[in-house]
Each structure stands twice: as structure tokens, then as C-alpha cells.
């Protein structure tokens, strides 16, 4: 007999408050509802996500999002078999609001709680959207994360490489800020880059000359700032064409880095897969960039690999991916107590040396 479970997911690890209901069985998963309430306008004047402002907003929005998600799905809490919540990694104030609301729901309804790693939510999205079988290679590229993951199971991740400093989405935001474009920076920079010449400014491709799949975007940001400041020193400002050229140059550098590292990660992943079919999937907001998608698709074609890009709404932060990951873990027997911790740092691949963060608090990612 086929068993169906209905899972409520809650996500609040950055600047999106989200709740979703996903129904799952052996035959696949169906997203019954997915509510995402962003906070762009709250953070706009600060040029980035302010953790305390984000935490304040989550605390007042989480329960409302849950109510809407249940209503949209046409289910009551009594029909929910498990409550899945992002317990990290992320901005701890927001994560805490989601976790405490989930605990309240679990306690009040007597429903099992499943603590989900936010990165696992992204990493399992190709299985949710496209039923991609394990193993597959995933590039997670967002405002907060950048890593290549070899995904061999619902709790079996090997990190093949990642950023040693900033995430590319953060670099897009910074570029937009430096050039007077709107936030979030990804779409604004991509739009401006359409009219620009990528080869006018010589911007670096950090770590491209080193072996392996690790990446760096910090120096690229600095180089862009220097190029901009030179223009300002020479002519008192930048023209729309300067801006377009800087955007095109920046985007080309990010694409070159990610595409070349993807080529290497795919080779490594194919070795690990040892003859099993292997798909390559993307997740994270940066995966929305058309030039990047085209470049990654090219890599896949040369290596005879299926390229999977889930719909954008499921690439960026959402709770459907948390519900799905939680549902898979629930089916595998995971239950968490109401004493479970919210964790600012929680690397998916615990076997690897930390790329970011160390010391008492441990690896960030």
C-alpha cells in the first residue's frame, strides 16, 4: 500500500518568511501551497540584509504565513503529518522565530517536528521538482552560499568545492550598489549587462588558475570598485555605458569562474558516480542568471550530462523545499525533540575541513 504524508514546511533563515504544504508519496511530491513573504523594502535603504530587522519581521510574519499556506492548501493542521522547519544555517534571529513557531505548532497539534538544514532543502530541490535520482551534482549559488555538492542521498552530501569568501549573489548585490542600480542586484546587473561590452574592463577570475573547485569573489568585488573609482576620478562619475560595460565585465567574470569550476566539479562527480548516470542541477537565486545558465548548459552538453534548472521560485528561498526535505527525512525516521537547537552554522558535509568559519562556533558551511 502506498503511503502519503502531508508536510508543513517553514523557512526563515534570511530575508524571506515562507511556509508551504507538500504532499508526498512513493510516486512523487505535490506542492499544495507555497507562501513567500519577502522583506526587500525593509532592507533597501541599508544596502543589504540587516539581521535584527530581518529577525523582527520574521517574528511577526511566520505564523501568518503558516495560516495562509494551510488555507491555500485547503488542509488543517490536524491533516499535517510532520512539521519541517529550517533549523540553520542562517541568520540566527530569523531561524529562531521559525523554529519556535514550529515547536509551538508541534506541541499544540501533537505533530512530529523535523529540523531541516536549509542547504539540504536547496540540495534536494531537483528531486522535488524533477524527480532526479541520486546521485547528482548540484551547484548552489545564492546570496549567502556557493558550493558544489555531490548528492548521493537525502542525508549524503559531499562538498566538492565552495567559496572561500563571499557568495556570488552577494557580489551581484554589491556591484549593483556600487553602480547605483536597484536591489536585489542579480536582475539589475543582468539587465544592465545586456548593453555592455564584457571585454572593456579587465576584471580578475580569482582562483581560476588553481586546481580544484573552490571559488573566490571578494577580489572581483574590489577590482570592480577600483575600476569604478578610476572612472569617477577621471570624469566625475560614470556614464550609463560605463555602467553597462562594468556589469557585463563583472557578470562575465562570475560566469567564467562558475562555469570552469562546474566543469571540474562535474568531472570529479562523474568519477565518484562510477558509471551511474549523473545529472547536473542548479539552485539558489544566482541560477536565475541567463548567461550563467547558458554557460552551465554548455558544460553539460560537452560532458553528455542532463542539465536541470528548477523553476526560479524553487531556486530561491522557499518553504516547499524545506517541507520536501523534511518529508524525506521523516519517511526515513527522523524526529526531533522540542529541545532542538536553531543553528547559525551547520555544514552539510561534516567530513570536510571548513571553508568558512572556524573556532568555537565551528564551520559555517
Amino acid at each position, binding site marked *: 500500500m502506498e503511503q502519503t504524508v502531508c508536510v508543513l514546511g517553514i523557512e526563515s533563515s534570511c530575508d524571506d518568511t515562507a511556509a508551504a504544504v507538500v504532499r508526498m508519496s512513493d510516486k512523487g511530491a505535490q506542492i499544495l501551497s507555497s507562501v513567500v513573504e519577502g522583506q526587500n523594502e525593509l532592507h533597501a*535603504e*541599508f*544596502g543589504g540584509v*540587516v539581521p*535584527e*530587522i530581518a*529577525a*523582527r519581521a520574521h*517574528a*511577526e510574519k*511566520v*505564523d501568518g504565513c*503558516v*495560516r495562509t499556506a494551510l488555507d491555500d492548501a485547503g488542509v488543517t*493542521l490536524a491533516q499535517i503529518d510532520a512539521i519541517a522547519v529550517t533549523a540553520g544555517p542562517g541568520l*540566527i*534571529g530569523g531561524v*529562531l*522565530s*521559525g*523554529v*519556535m*513557531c*514550529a*515547536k*509551538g*505548532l*508541534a*506541541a*499544540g*497539534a*501533537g*505533530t512530529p517536528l523535523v529540523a531541516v538544514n536549509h542547504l539540504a532543502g536547496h540540495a534536494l530541490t531537483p528531486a522535488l521538482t524533477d524527480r532526479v535520482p541520486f546521485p547528482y551534482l548540484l551547484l548552489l549559488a545564492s546570496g549567502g552560499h556557493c558550493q558544489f555538492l555531490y548528492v548521493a542521498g537525502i542525508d549524503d552530501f559531499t562538498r566538492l568545492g565552495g567559496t572561500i569568501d563571499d557568495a556570488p549573489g552577494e557580489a551581484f548585490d554589491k556591484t549593483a*550598489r*556600487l*553602480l*547605483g542600480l536597484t536591489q536585489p542586484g542579480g536582475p539589475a546587473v543582468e539587465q544592465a549587462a545586456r548593453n555592455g561590452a564584457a571585454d572593456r574592463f579587465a576584471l580578475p577570475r580569482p582562483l581560476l588558475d588553481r586546481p580544484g573547485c573552490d571559488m573566490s569573489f571578494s577580489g572581483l568585488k574590489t577590482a570592480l570598485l577600483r575600476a*569604478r573609482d578610476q572612472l*569617477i576620478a577621471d*570624469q*566625475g*562619475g*560614470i*556614464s*550609463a*555605458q*560605463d*555602467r553597462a560595460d562594468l556589469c557585463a565585465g563583472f557578470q562575465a567574470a562570475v560566469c567564467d569562474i562558475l562555469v570552469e569550476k562546474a566543469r571540474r566539479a562535474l568531472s570529479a562527480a562523474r568519477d565518484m558516480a562510477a558509471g551511474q548516470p549523473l545529472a547536473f542541477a542548479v539552485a539558489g537565486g544566482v541560477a536565475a542568471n541567463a548567461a550563467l545558465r547558458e554557460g552551465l548548459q554548455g558544460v553539460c552538453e560537452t560532458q553528455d550530462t542532463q542539465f536541470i534548472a528548477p523553476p526560479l521560485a524553487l531556486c530561491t528561498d522557499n518553504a516547499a523545499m524545506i517541507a520536501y526535505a523534511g518529508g524525506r527525512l521523516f519517511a526515513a525516521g527522523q524526529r526531533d*525533540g*522540542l*529541545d*532542538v*537547537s*536553531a543553528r547559525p552554522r551547520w555544514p552539510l558535509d561534516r567530513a570536510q575541513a571548513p571553508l568558512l568559519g572556524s573556532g568555537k562556533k565551528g564551520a559555517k558551511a
Partner: protein
Amino acid sequence: MPSDPLILGFDTSAAHVAAALLSGDQVLAQTHTPMRKGQAETLFPALDKLLTGAGKAYADLDAIAVGVGPGNFTGIRISVSAARGLALALDRPAIGVTGFAAVGLGATPSTICSLPAAAGRFYLGRADGSGTPVLWDGDNFDVPPQAILRHWPDDAVPEFAGATAQAQPIPVAEAICRAAAAQLASGQITPPKPYYLKPADAAPSKTPPVVILDDA
């Protein structure tokens, strides 16, 4: 609503996990554990224990009462988020009680209430909710001579000439339950919302925006 509603109240707005169970006028159980870290992990096990010890279950509750601050920002959010989740699951009202209402419960209306803030500072407000509560900076709150200054027993109190400090004899979670019971009885319920009195520490960028030149 029954004549003796069962109310579960809790608070993590300061360095403690406090909870109480009030049935009508009677406190069935309460707990107060001093704690600087770990409130998010400890709160629900403490509530479970409290209910079980009193032979009650979440489903028996008529309302949830919660301390909304002012106080520790993270602590406030821990309890408020938990209360909202419980209320949604149980389809019972969640009731927000400010720290001033709790520490000032039972005091004469003009009583001034003091609550601890970060870095040895204080939040000041009036027991009856009149006037504008503040994060006290030394002269942004009018304290008349002979004022009575309510506070929690273990907390420091700012010194004002001629004012008399008076500790609230009722424990914090019980006071929150009783204040919530009064709201419930009056039919005027305040849903819980974190009460900060201090904006988030963030300043807009001081760097002037880049000048975009006319291409023409």
C-alpha cells in the same frame, strides 16, 4: 469562555525561563529558571513538565499568555513566536503582556515600572500604561518625588531622589497569567507582538550614491 479559564503563561524576555499555569484565580504550577543562554531549547520541555505535573495537556488550555518585553530582543522573539505557534495550533487566543503590565500588576496606577535593559540600562514605563515608556537615557522620563518604583526582586533599579523602590511580590510568569486573565475577562485582548522600545541597530550607508553622467 469558562468562568475559570486555564491559562499557560511564559516569559523569556530576561535571563530566565519562567512559566506558570493559572486556573481561574488559582496557580496550579509555576517554574522559574535563571538562564542566560538556551531558552529556545529549554522553553518547551519546561512547559511540558509544568502541564504534565498539573495533570493538564495543551488541549485543555483556554488561552496562552506571553511576556512581550521590553527586554532581551532574542528572548522576546523566542516566547512570542512560540506563543503564536501554540495559539494557531490550538485555535485559542494568544495574549501579549508587556513587562510594565506584569511588574506593575496590583500597583497603584501612577507607579513607575523599571525593567532591566542591556548594558546596565533600564526601561521605564507606568503601571497603568499611561505616558510613553522609554529606554531611559537619564532625563527622558519624568519621575516625580515620592514616586513608587516597581521592579522584579532580583533586578537593579535606577535611583531617583525621593523615590521608593518596591519589588513586585508576584513571580513574573504568574503576573503575566493574571494580567492576561484580566484581558480575557474584559474581552480586550492584545495579540502578542514583540515590544522593543529601541530601533534595530542599523544605519543607512553614508557613502554618497555614484554619479551617473549623461551620455549625451
